[in-house]
């Protein structure tokens, strides 16, 4: 999975097309590589991940800033590394 850096300094992880458990795993692994305060945007289109990704982010002590539907059944989850 490619983690891309956006012009505004945030990171982007595009997980469209992947299903459980990959969205949770890749999000977790990417967050571990970020520094505290950095922001990761995760793009998902797998409905169950809409629950499981935020739950695992919170369980690992990181912060879910925003969950936004950017088009039908595609969501961006913005996460701040703590």
């Amino acid at each position, binding site marked *: *999975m*490619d*983690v*891309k*850096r*956006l*012009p505004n300094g945030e990171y*982007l992880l*595009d*997980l*469209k*097309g*992947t*299903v*459980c*458990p*990959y969205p*949770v*795993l*890749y999000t*977790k*692994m*990417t967050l571990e*590589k970020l520094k505290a305060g950095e922001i990761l945007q995760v*793009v998902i*289109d*797998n*409905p*169950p991940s809409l*629950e*499981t990704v935020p*739950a*695992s982010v919170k369980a690992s002590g990181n912060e879910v800033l925003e969950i936004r539907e*950017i*088009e*039908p*059944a*595609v969501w*961006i989850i913005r996460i701040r590394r703590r």
Partner: protein
Amino acid sequence: MASFKVTFKRFFDNIFREPWPEYFAGILLGFVNIVFYAWALKPYTIFSGYQNWGQHIYSLINLNWISGSPLASVLEDKTSVGIIGLFFGASIAAIISKEFRIRLPSSRIQVVEAVLGGILMSLGVVLSFGCNWGGFFSAITALSLHGWAMFSGLLIGGYLGQKYIIWKVSFATRMHEETFKVKSSELGGRHILKRRLAPIFFAIEAITIILIMAYYSFGPIKDAGLYAVILLFGIIVGIIIQRSRFCFTTAFRDLFFGPEFQRSIRLHKGIILGLLAGVTGGFVLKYRGFVEPLNYVAPVSLTNILGGIIFAFGMVLAGACASGILWRAGEGHVNAFITIFTAVLAYPILRKSFNFTGIGFFIPNIGWTNGMILTYMLLFLYLLFILYLEGRKS
């Protein structure tokens, strides 16, 4: 009337916005499973529907000597009708819930895994005499020991599948330090089939269901009402599974050390409640002679455990179980269609090639009361095991 609008919307949101709790879905599935059993005189199963479809495909190209010939048309095979219903039910629930979307595989590896998963699941079904329904959920409901044998295999296979996934992702993340310009419009991804497609799919599916029902009403089918209601049961199962995200794969994959461990525990509790409802109904149906006691009692031996292991590994590769691939396909996952297609082509051949038999064990053979006590004790042990794992982790 504003208050009616509010209450209606709240009810609608409860059903089609918020996911249903797993225990609620489990009880519903157990209940539907047993009513289905009473209606169809066979438990709700899945893979023999794929067998029916595959045999039709092979018959079209005169290859039915490798697959066997279909016993009934697609709309007159109980299992086939049941899973057609599951697909439509899940799809319609996904569309109403705004969760439908044509989703392309994210990588070539995913496509390879979908094919391999379909083949391994088919092989597992042959060895276990059923999938996660016919070999496990409905098998235990039918009071056959082969359900418990496959269950132990599913636990091992799910564990091995998780090992594989952790190994695979350990070297799969790549950080780019250079900056990329990504327009927000690009994040929607491949631009085929975006907005406005869900209503078209909805219309196609609704019309197809109406046409099938019309065929049952006016067509030349004997006992058409039987199949019409089976279709309805399938639709209900599909809605329940889609709305609760009742994923047997997550349940068995993440049970020991997975990232979705909590969800896996909740799913297992749902499965246990579903089995509790199922076996209770199973006793009633079989004791009263409503269905033959030995109905759906399949051979049991060590191969059932092996089949469970292979099946579980296959479903982890494919990302969904026998019912899960239908639900995911209904939601628009192209990968799930690939797995279904593989299973449809592989299963009839494997079934015909490995046509071994054995001795089944009907649990009430040890006496109805003893069998009942034993079954409830097994379910209780299953629950204790899940609660133990939950406690150990937290």
